[in-house]
């Protein structure tokens, strides 16, 4: 009887252990707890990779406008997790479709950052020094953001975009780390999924999600909602944009554009929003691009003002040189004498590296942030740069600005070409 009891107890324990093992091999993925809400879907890159091979891809692709090198690799690494293919899904010869997550999860590319940010600013960058054998890591917890660091000096990082014969693939490792950022741990499934505990070979295999990775992201964010907004096409004529797709709200769509605020903190991760765009048929909407505050790169539609994960569409390529000069890269350096002024205080805005003798306009970014200079119709002032491409403009902060935060940038026109500055943030006391 004793032996029977021992055998039974042993079998039960073995069965329990086997259950764990079988569960692992059947499911594989694991989670670290938490998820990214819709306010934390942004991701940016501070491109401080030191090795030349990390930034030697200079080939543009229409699905990924404006970015090459390590930035493009990391953008694609994040977009692979998205609910639906990014654009037509092409842009990487190693993948069928970039954007195969199939869950209510989409990262929103916000381009470059000027610094590594804090541990919850959602910025990917490189860190110097010995790696101690680690390729990259993600700082958690995830719920209020994350930060990813690649050991830039310790490994021979490659930006692809094709096969990587020597060194480590930025895109594959980025895809893995961004999987951590959205809440996944490591997978024990066979077949080398992206969330495998270690990177095999160069890591290009980690660029594409395996079925276990997809099951993992769905377990956190649920499978893609049938009512999720979907973008099939985006067309631009001048400053008029038409989006066609499905699942749009009749009146409360919010269009997300990439912010052109370049910073190393949290603000640069805020998208520029065009609010309350109607869609009479749920499949098409048209809106006017804001005068400033946005850049080409990508676009998304959020159906309502709610916070359900299924309310946000996948991201879609967006490339426009129009729109009043808001698009394009920031080529002019714009600065202000005090970033935390008081009302009544005089501010001097200065420009450098601008076109010579060019007319410029200083404007507010983020039209949904209620510019406080309402009497100026969104324009702070105008002027002309010097023959050396510099400019200086003086303005007193009005009383109406007390306690407000505003974003201001400058646009310069030379020979019909619009040049854009960085955006500066003013926290008015």
């Amino acid at each position, binding site marked *: 009887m004793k032996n029977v009891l*021992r055998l039974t*107890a*042993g079998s039960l*324990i*073995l069965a*329990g*252990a086997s259950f*764990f*093992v079988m569960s*692992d091999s059947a499911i594989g993925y694991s989670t*670290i707890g938490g998820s990214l809400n819709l306010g934390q879907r942004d991701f940016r890159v501070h491109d401080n990779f030191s090795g030349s091979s990390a930034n030697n891809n200079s080939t543009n692709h229409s699905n990924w406008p404006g970015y090459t090198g390590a930035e493009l690799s990391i953008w694609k690494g994040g977009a692979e997790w998205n609910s639906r293919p990014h654009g037509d899904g092409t842009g990487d010869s190693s993948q069928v479709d970039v954007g195969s997550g199939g869950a209510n999860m989409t990262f929103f590319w916000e381009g470059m950052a000027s610094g*590594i940010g*804090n*541990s919850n600013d959602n910025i990917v960058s490189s*860190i*110097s*020094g*010995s790696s*101690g*054998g*680690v*390729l*990259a*890591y*993600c*700082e*958690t*917890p995830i719920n209020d953001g994350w930060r990813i660091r690649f050991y830039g000096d310790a490994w021979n990082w490659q930006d692809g975009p094709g096969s990587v014969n020597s060194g*480590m693939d930025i895109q594959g*490792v980025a895809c*893995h*780390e961004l999987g*951590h950022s959205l809440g996944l*741990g*490591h997978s*024990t499934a066979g077949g080398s999924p992206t969330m*495998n*505990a*270690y*990177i*095999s*070979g160069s890591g290009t295999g980690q660029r594409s999600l395996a079925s276990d990775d997809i099951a993992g992201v769905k377990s956190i964010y649920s499978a893609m909602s049938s009512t999720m907004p979907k973008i099939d096409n985006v067309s631009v004529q001048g400053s008029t944009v038409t989006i066609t797709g499905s699942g749009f709200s009749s009146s409360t769509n919010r269009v997300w554009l990439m912010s052109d605020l370049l910073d190393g903190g949290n603000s640069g991760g805020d998208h520029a929003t065009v609010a309350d765009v109607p869609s009479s048929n749920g499949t098409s909407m048209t809106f006017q691009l804001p005068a400033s505050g946005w850049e080409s790169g990508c676009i998304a539609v959020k159906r309502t003002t709610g916070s359900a994960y299924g309310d946000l569409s996948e991201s879609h390529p967006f490339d426009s040189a129009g729109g009043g000069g808001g698009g394009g890269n920031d080529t002019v350096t714009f600065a202000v004498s005090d970033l935390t002024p008081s009302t009544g205080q005089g501010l001097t805005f200065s420009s450098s590296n601008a076109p010579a003798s060019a007319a410029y306009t200083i404007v507010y970014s983020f039209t949904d942030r209620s510019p406080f200079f309402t009497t100026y119709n969104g324009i702070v002032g105008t002027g002309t740069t010097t023959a050396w491409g510099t400019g200086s403009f003086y303005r007193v902060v009005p009383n109406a600005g007390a306690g407000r935060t505003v974003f201001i940038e400058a646009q310069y026109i030379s020979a019909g070409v619009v040049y854009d500055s960085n955006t500066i943030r003013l926290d008015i006391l």
Partner: protein
Amino acid sequence: MKLLRWLTASAAILLLMQAGNACIEELDLQKMISKTDIAVQGTITDVRTVKYTPENDDLLIYTIVTIEGTNLYDNSPITVDAAFLGGTFEGESMMVTSMPAPSEYRLGNDVVVFSGTVQGWGPDIDRCVYASMGGIFRTIDSRKGKVVLGKGKGFAVEGNQLVSTLISDIAKVTSEAR
């Protein structure tokens, strides 16, 4: 007694499942040996944290574990201070996906740690737990001897094995390298 053995086996299986979240290269034993100069098998006698801010970067927190035992590479007694990124220093935490699981580096744990030298980790650190969670393995006592718990495919110690077997494997790899 048999039940105890079963529980030990179950614990070992559970330990296998709680590896941390590193992003590391694939490291079989041969590769691990080529990248490290110490493999210490012993007991963790101290766990502490330090903070360090590299030039033009943000604050980093490192956990340093002291292991007293034997260097498996030359069978000499050794005490090693080896660090990995992440930890909590005076209430401030830096939790990173490359850290070992807390249960792996607890004070008093018997472990095998593969270690190599590092630069740029601040004045208190000159040596790391190589590959962070990929370089530390728990050991447990069994009737047949001390067992090192493996972490699965792609790790230097793939499956559970006697420490004596690991020592033999290390010697074999080392002699082949010569």
